[in-house]
């Protein structure tokens, strides 16, 4: 019997795995997909929220603000890109300023620092491309942007480095409560653990409901996004939100950490937990609404669009804890926005809960830091030449749009929890994320992957499981 099984290798599951990997525990993360970061964690806004939006006193508010503060240090410790670019919430009419004031007040209660309401003129000095209809803004300097893939992968790699086992392509089918602990029946056999952590994203209700009579219900809330070329990336420097509604924070316009411009998301409640298809109506809505925040968005520069599903629980709150009738089973459910921001805090919060279930004894050999893939493009010419001398594969550019070398791709495949699919390489290196959207590098990346994994080209997958249809 293992000590801990974590269901789901998204950012919550991996952050928890990493925090628990400090201790002498036998931990396993089970994930139905072939890679970490395959669900909600891969398709979101990549925003580190200030924390003004959540209801004061809520778990969302607490973990958001904590996570925001922790993000800076974690990004250094685990080597993932993060920047405090600041956020703005716009309003369009004088009578809406009270809405901004309410957010400001809420933010102060939540512990968000240095927020300020700015007049249109003041805001334009910071952000000259705000739409003509913008009347005033709430400025949140602590807001930031992060690479959601790299953050998730960084947590996973550090956990793996510290002995956490990852069982990928392993789908949990049922959970049996035992006298002590749980038995998980998966499509790869059975597993047992004293403690089960349910970080299954949009599926968290399914697993919760297998062990508890106090049922929960998660609605996948689909969000469509459009990503624009890097030539549009500096069009705004802040993340620009609209006044939030019940359905969420509305359509945002934001630079991404890698310098693209991101528009979205929509908020469409669906039932199908796999339905990540964009729709024409969704894409049209993004275009229509984003111009209310920012004028003259160069929409012809769209290079791709995608959709993600937020795990919205009916109560609208993070559910983190043990159901009364299933001790040892810790839900990490309803992790919609600000889930990405909160992940570092969720990791610590759940660790403390596990400490209440079992004794946590610190490992001597725990490795605190993780080093990411060397970003060739970011090195000085001397460093680049040194690297090519040692390893000539860094002298071959595979992805011309993003300037990604063969060396980086090989590193992505060979490192712990390495990439097994084209999307896995893309998320780890950015190869294929540029303006040609993998038109030129697909054949080369396929060849490299085939060679490294001893596969034939026909067996190379874009994403997903080996056996899936």
């Amino acid at each position, binding site marked *: 019997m293992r000590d801990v099984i974590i269901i789901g290798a998204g950012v919550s599951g991996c952050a928890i795995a990493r925090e628990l990997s400090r201790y002498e525990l036998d931990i396993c993360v089970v994930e139905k997909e072939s890679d970490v970061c395959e669900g909600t964690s891969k398709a979101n806004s990549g925003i580190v929220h200030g924390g003004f939006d959540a209801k004061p006193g809520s778990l969302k508010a607490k973990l958001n603000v904590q996570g925001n503060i922790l993000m800076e240090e974690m990004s250094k410790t685990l080597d993932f890109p993060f920047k405090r670019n600041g956020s703005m919430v716009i309003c369009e009419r004088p009578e809406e300023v009270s809405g901004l004031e309410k957010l400001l007040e809420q933010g102060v209660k939540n512990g968000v620092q240095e927020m300020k309401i700015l007049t249109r003129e003041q805001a334009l000095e910071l952000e000259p491309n705000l739409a003509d209809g913008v009347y005033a803004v709430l400025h949140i300097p602590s807001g930031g942007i992060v690479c959601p893939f790299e953050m998730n992968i960084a947590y996973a790699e550090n956990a793996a480095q510290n002995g956490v086992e990852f069982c990928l392509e392993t789908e949990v089918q049922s959970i049996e409560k035992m006298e002590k602990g749980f038995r998980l029946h998966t499509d790869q056999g059975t597993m047992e653990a004293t403690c089960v952590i349910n970080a299954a994203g949009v599926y968290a209700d399914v697993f919760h409901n297998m062990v508890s009579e106090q049922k929960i219900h998660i609605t996948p809330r689909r969000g469509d996004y459009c990503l624009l070329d890097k*030539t549009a990336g500096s069009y705004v420097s802040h993340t620009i939100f609209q006044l939030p509604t019940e359905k969420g924070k509305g359509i945002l316009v934001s630079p991404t950490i890698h310098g693209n411009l991101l528009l979205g998301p929509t908020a469409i409640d669906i039932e199908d937990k796999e339905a*990540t298809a964009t729709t024409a109506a969704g894409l049209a809505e993004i275009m229509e609404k984003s111009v209310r925040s920012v004028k003259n968005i160069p929409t012809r520069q769209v290079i791709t669009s995608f959709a993600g599903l937020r795990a919205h629980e009916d109560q609208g709150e993070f559910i983190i804890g043990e159901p009364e009738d299933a001790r040892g089973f810790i839900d990490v459910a309803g992790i919609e926005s600000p889930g990405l921001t909160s992940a570092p805090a969720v990791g610590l919060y759940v660790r403390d809960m596990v400490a209440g279930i079992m004794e946590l004894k610190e490992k001597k050999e725990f490795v605190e830091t993780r080093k990411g893939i060397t970003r060739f493009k970011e090195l000085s010419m001397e460093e*680049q030449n040194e690297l090519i001398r040692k390893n000539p594969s860094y*002298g071959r550019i595979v992805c*011309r749009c993003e300037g990604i070398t063969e060396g980086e791709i090989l590193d992505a495949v060979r490192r712990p929890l390495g990439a097994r699919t084209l999307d896995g390489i893309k998320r780890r290196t950015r190869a294929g994320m540029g303006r040609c959207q993998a038109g030129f590098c697909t054949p080369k990346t*396929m060849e490299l992957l085939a060679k490294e994994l001893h596969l034939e080209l026909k067996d190379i*997958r*874009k994403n*997903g499981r080996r056996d*899936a249809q």
Partner: protein
Amino acid sequence: MKQCDLVIVGGGPAGLAAAIAAKKNGINDILIVERDEKLGGILNQCIHNGFGLHTFHEELTGPEYAYRFIQMAEELEIPYMTGSMVLDITPEKKLTVINRTEGVMEIQAKSVILAMGCRERPRGALNIPGYRPMGIYSAGTAQRLVNVDGFLPGKEVVILGSGDIGLIMARRMTLEGAKVKVVAELMPYSGGLKRNIVQCLDDFGIPLKLSHTVVEIKGKQKLEGVTLARVDEHNRPIPGTEEYYACDTLLLSCGLIPENELSREMGIAMNPVTNGPVVDESLETSIPGVFVCGNVLHVHDLVDFVSEEAAVAGRNAADYIRGNMEEKKSQGIPVETEGGIRYSVPSVVEPERMHEPVKVRFRVGNVYTNCYISLYLDDIRIQRKKRQIVTPGEMEEMVLKKEFFQEYGRPEKIRIVLEQAKQDDREVNGNE
């Protein structure tokens, strides 16, 4: 830092022809920088025939056509560097180049010819909604997989867009044993050459559906099928016209984009219609000594015209390096297009600097039948050509001669005008 008279960025048909012309005009210190492992560019994956009818009066395959130029370059002992990519060019013509053996190096050039070619428009730019499964490729990516890597990406194929690569791949996939079910084209006309529609679709019984687009993509991990719909005159799908096609592969051939990242970073003035640099009669960009040719300048229909154009760039670069090129004394005379012609290359002409007749190339934005293409100096018509049909898929040209300016004086502007022929006008094709 390494010095070089002429650096040519790209070793495809444009770069090779430019290098050969420069060498023949007395420039010896040349370097071609090619990012692929061998010279020839995209022609290496174009294994179908039909290349070289104008240049060699023969029908060659892409690799054969490329090989003729590679051979000429080898015979002329023109230096080249493969597996090497230009990362940056400064306005002062200092290039940063990377490869596996020499690492990152800087090269100072006297003159630069840009010949980077073009890339395909990706799915995202088309705003096709739906999932993002395996099985969706741009036509050129599929061409490389099939022709170079020997890998057939699927068995049941739908093609969106009737650009030439899409048409060629419809035939290619069919010959490799796949079933190409349909080619859908958003516009009411094809973007490809007539001969490709006949030889690649008609001859194989592959239907071409004009004014159709993909409105849905089915399959989360692997493509299962696509839904096509007819579009109205504003290119909006018409409800009720949807038709589902089961397929495992969707190829996109929806336009080519000149690959001008380096040109933009150098600060070269760009033409928003062609997405290529603004050039004058010498194919010189807004930075003196930087020339451009081939698909990075504007997307061509036939490689023969690329080679011809590139040779002009090569000769002019040679003149520039040898100090034989007149400095620009004025802005030059603008070339304006009217009546449905979208652009012209060059878009500005300085008669003083014309050493040879200048071919002005252009494309129309729609299909026109029974019309004239006329060349005016201000309001004086110098030439007109009767055309039964002009289409966006085929490039047109007009020749400007120095004598025109000697005879008629220096105009304010040069105009290329598409004019409808009158019903009773019986004049036949002027220059054809």
